[in-house]
């Protein structure tokens, strides 16, 4: 996320707005300031994405400079809670299907075993019948 020193120097050199240039030099050229700035930038980027995904981009507390950065495009993410519910529903469906298959297999196995035993008795002990 954080740009390299050379990248920052190049960007500052290209900048034409004198006020922004001064701010960038004062903040991003000092390691401790840059670290704090990066940390806050990360938090704000995350909050911006969360707000965009949850429809809170126009809420009362999202205004001013922090809300004016559109450099990161929206990621078209879906609702996580709905996704969790869908996953649970899918897991339940798989579980139910497996239970049906298992029951069928048990029945099939039982019938096959009984048939096998009957045939074996018929072949090897015909006197019983």
């Amino acid at each position: 996320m954080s740009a390299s020193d050379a990248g920052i120097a190049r960007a500052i050199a290209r900048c034409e707005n004198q006020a922004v240039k001064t701010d960038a030099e004062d903040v991003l050229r000092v390691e401790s300031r840059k670290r704090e700035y990066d940390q806050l930038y990360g938090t704000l980027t995350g909050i911006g994405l969360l707000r965009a995904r949850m429809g809170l981009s126009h809420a009362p507390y999202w205004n001013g400079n922090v809300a004016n950065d559109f450099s990161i495009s929206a990621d078209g993410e879906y609702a996580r809670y709905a996704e969790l519910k869908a996953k649970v529903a899918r897991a339940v469906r798989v579980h139910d299907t497996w239970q049906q298959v298992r029951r069928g297999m048990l029945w099939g196995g039982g019938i096959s075993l009984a048939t096998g035993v009957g045939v074996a008795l018929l072949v090897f002990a015909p006197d019983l019948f």
Partner: protein
Amino acid sequence: MASSRFTPFERLLLSSRNEADTAALLLLAWLAMSDGQGTLSDRKRTLLDELTGDFRHDHGYQLIVDLASAPDFVALQLAAEVLQRYYRGPRRETFLRQAIHVATHEGALAAGQHHVLRFLADLLNVAPETFEVLFRDVAGYPLEAPEDPSAAHYWRSRESADHRHSSQQGRHGAQGDSSRERTGGEEDNAQGSRDRHRQERRYRQREHAKDEREEARQRRWRWRREKTGQRERADDGQRSDEGKRRREGFSHEGFSHEGAHAKGHATGSNEKAQRALAVLGLMENAQKSEIKRAYRRLAQKYHPDRYHAQSQEAMVTASLRFQRIKNAYDYLMRQHA
């Protein structure tokens, strides 16, 4: 399409006894760790333990701490959606109070915490006016606009404040310290000055909050004395009949001063109901079921048995608090009967 595997936080939510409390815990941990230090210190963890004592998540902290420190915004989004879905009415206010307490526990709000708190207020659809009142109530000082670390003047004003503070310290401190010059590297200096700046602001805010609390206490005390005086004057003529009537008042922590008679004191009764609701952390038009729920939650949290192993003072405080909660509950139940 999304991955069909469950993420660790999804598994935690599914195994939790109360998914809303699990979600709230993750968001509070994120707020606590947005102070620029990125770790959950023992003090913060103890505070979280205290604040979330009545949560019913019934699972450990480790995964929550890992997710909050990263921070994992996928998990945070899920937690925010769960919170938005389940936290309504007075529960929102209680949660925001907890959040403000977490953020202001160690002094002034860090820039990141400013934005996380505002996000939580928007998430729970709490209007700025209401949130600012809540903030002032909990923190003891008003909510200010967050500062902008991308501007040079922010750093200049911060460092000049640090400089003033260090020169003050120099005057008060030992003379030998004057040889300690600020030449030991920009990074260490900035870290040290940040700490000092925070300490200074924390001290100012504590003093401010203390003054405000003292002023509020005195105001309440004057109000109670006035009320008691008025009541005594009004009661002089009709003491014999009134004495037999059932008193509807709370018997502990100030409520006993205001044990107004029900008849002829409609406004007093209304105020008492409001105070009783405030004791239970409820809004004005709370339903009977909400009152019961709030009482159970608070009774579990503040039951004196829970403080048995602690000091005598803690036990007495807990008993008084529990009694106050119980009196408020009994009063409201009588009102709803």
